[in-house]
């Protein structure tokens, strides 16, 4: 993982943030869809995590099944938040997040990643941040920024092979390596993928959910939106298949010169 400019480093981090979400939630949606075809109903595993106000909320929206499992089988048996001392609460939370890190892989990057989330969640819990933000809408909106920033930074650590590699990448992101702000690679790459980036950001927001909510009283329009959605999904499926074909399409460029 290397980047030769600050902008390119950020672009890479943001792209990975989107990639891991669509990758993971996509697989989960496949499992949910296939299960439904066979008569099984599985719960949603991702609930638009990137709109979270707090890290606490993020982990209620991201990989819900994992969070639920650790809550039910580690956190609650250890006492959860119903403990006498704050020190015990902190320990319970740090154990859960250490194990969450280990669950993702046998690498120090995952453990550190998990522990960072543990520290922030402890901070939010001890200061009761989620409740305070409910009463302060402006602050709540602003708090989304450091939340999302931490998530993006966390993904850099998650993606790196080593902690040293992650630190180097993060240093580039924050302009601490002397790399230029923008380079040719960034200019070309940003222009090349601007539509995908925009599409990815839009699809990580609950826009369709909001539209459906607005139209609940207008069932005819809602039916139309749903039908259009099905057709678009099918077309997207066919386009996705074309990507499989295209990725294997590498005709020899005869007359190479």
């Amino acid at each position, binding site marked *: 993982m290397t980047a030769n400019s600050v902008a390119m480093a950020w672009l890479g981090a943001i792209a990975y943030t989107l990639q891991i979400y669509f990758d993971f939630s996509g697989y989960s949606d496949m499992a949910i869809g296939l299960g439904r075809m066979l008569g099984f109903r599985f719960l949603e595993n991702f609930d638009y995590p990137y709109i979270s106000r707090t890290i606490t909320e993020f982990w209620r929206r991201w990989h819900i099944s994992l969070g639920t499992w650790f809550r039910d089988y580690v956190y609650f048996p250890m006492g959860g938040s119903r403990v006498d001392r704050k020190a015990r609460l902190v320990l319970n939370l740090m154990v859960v997040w250490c194990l969450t890190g280990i669950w993702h892989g046998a690498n120090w990057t995952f453990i550190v990643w998990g522990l960072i989330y543990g520290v922030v969640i402890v901070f939010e819990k001890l200061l009761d941040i989620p409740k305070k933000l409910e009463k302060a809408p402006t602050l709540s909106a602003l708090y989304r920024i450091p939340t999302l920033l931490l998530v993006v930074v966390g993904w850099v650590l998650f993606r790196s092979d080593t902690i040293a590699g992650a630190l180097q990448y993060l240093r580039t992101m924050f302009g601490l390596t002397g790399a230029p702000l923008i380079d040719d690679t960034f200019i070309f790459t940003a222009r*090349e993928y601007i539509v995908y980036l925009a599409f990815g950001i839009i699809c990580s927001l609950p826009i369709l959910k909001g539209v459906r909510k607005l139209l609940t009283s207008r069932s005819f329009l809602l039916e139309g939106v749903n039908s259009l959605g099905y057709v678009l999904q099918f077309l997207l499926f066919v386009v996705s298949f074309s990507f499989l074909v295209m990725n294997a399409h590498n005709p020899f460029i005869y*007359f190479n*010169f």
Partner: protein
Amino acid sequence: MALLFVAYIAVMAGFNYKMVTDPFAKFFNGGATFEETTSTVASGYQSDQLWGKTNFIDLNGFFARATARRAYNGVTLLKNNMLSYEVDQFQKFIDISYLGSGISDFSDYLASIGIPFVYVQLPIKQDQQGSVLPDGLKNYPNINADAVVKKLVEAGTNTLDIRPELAGSAAMLKENFYKTDHHWNADGAFKGYQLIMDHLNQNVDSSIRAAYTDPSLWQRHVLEDWFLGSHGKRVGRYFDGTDDLIWYTPDFKTEISCIIPLHKNIFKGTFKDANIRSIYTEQKDYFRLNPYAIYIGGDYPLTQHRNAKAPNQMRVLLIKDSFMLPLQSFLSTEFTEIDVIDPRYYTASTIAEYCAWNRPDLVIMAKNPSIGDRRYCQFGVDDAKKEDIANAPETVLLSDYDVDIEKKDFNWSSSVIPVEMVPGKTYRFRAGDITVTDGHTDGVSVLLFDSPHNEIVLHEILDVGYCKENVNNGRREWTFKVPRKGKEGALYKLVIYAGVHGSTKNTGISYSDISVTQLG
């Protein structure tokens, strides 16, 4: 939605059932394991046999364009909406200055044995300023070509750079290049032909005349929406559209042959008979055919043009890349003998050896800037100098030898020349006269044959009609080197065949005054 999904799977499965049944048939016959079988079935979408594959490629290319992609599947869309190579070519500088050194050394060697040499810098589908490249990409192919040309000019090599006239601006690129292919079109190649002939007249030998460079002597043909080029095939028809196929044929009388030893072919007759491959004008298939090969048919190790009535009685060696295909065809109207070597594929000898043995009157090398393949500068010059092959003494092993090969009704109608072929040695075969006594053939084969292994090792085809014209001192000869290391137990024989081996039979040939000399 589930119904749509299931219907799609059913349709794809129905049309591609063989991708499932064939692997499983092999499994049940014991030809593959279950794991191999399921792996083959699962990767069926990668097969060229996938039903509707080209439609998926078209769809994917369309989607890529609709989402504003300019670089896709190894192809870059230039600012002038033409397709070019993948982005990597424009993001990394690769030092190819060794090309300049190698080519100038070769030029010096040829000069030492009295052979003039011209290097032609062909264009690529970017203007030299790089104005059509997407932002963030650099014009490295042209920068590299500039370095090669500079090195050659400094070394005193006769150099012709035709990039300013053919790729000097974005507008010129549209005129002279195919939109979806990496090659120039016939319009660009014709301009190249004009520039080369003018340069030869002005900078090599004023007696070389450009007899046919006036475009009014030629007919320009166009087939619209006919060609999906090399870049286009990677991204489909809807990424950037298709091209018209353009080609030129002369309006003046011609009698030319085009010999392709690799495929044992001799195309003979008019310019069209010899140089145009009509399959590309008769059949349209965007993904399976390459109409750029309308001239000559493809890249071969060696191609030989013979034109007894050409205005310039000269033997020319062209060292080519694929841009040469239309160019060599145009030049075949101007010169009596043109041998065309593609250094990527030619292995019968080094190019320095070829020049020393055959002593062409002129050597022209033309190359486009895309990649710096070392085969374009490793011509065996050092070994040629060390062994002094240009001045190798000749020892006559056979002379005044006559052979009459009678017409026979089976393929192997030939005669063995009674000279031992020693591995590693170089021989020159000459015939005083070659006459077709029975049947018809346009050419005759002279073969180096490994008899224990029943294998033709080297194959030369002589144009019988051209030989009869006694052009270039009646040169009916072939110089070759017997491989030093062949198959174990190889025993080589020099064989003359009645006709073109593998192509004609039922022919009687008479050879007179055959001689074989050993060089060195």
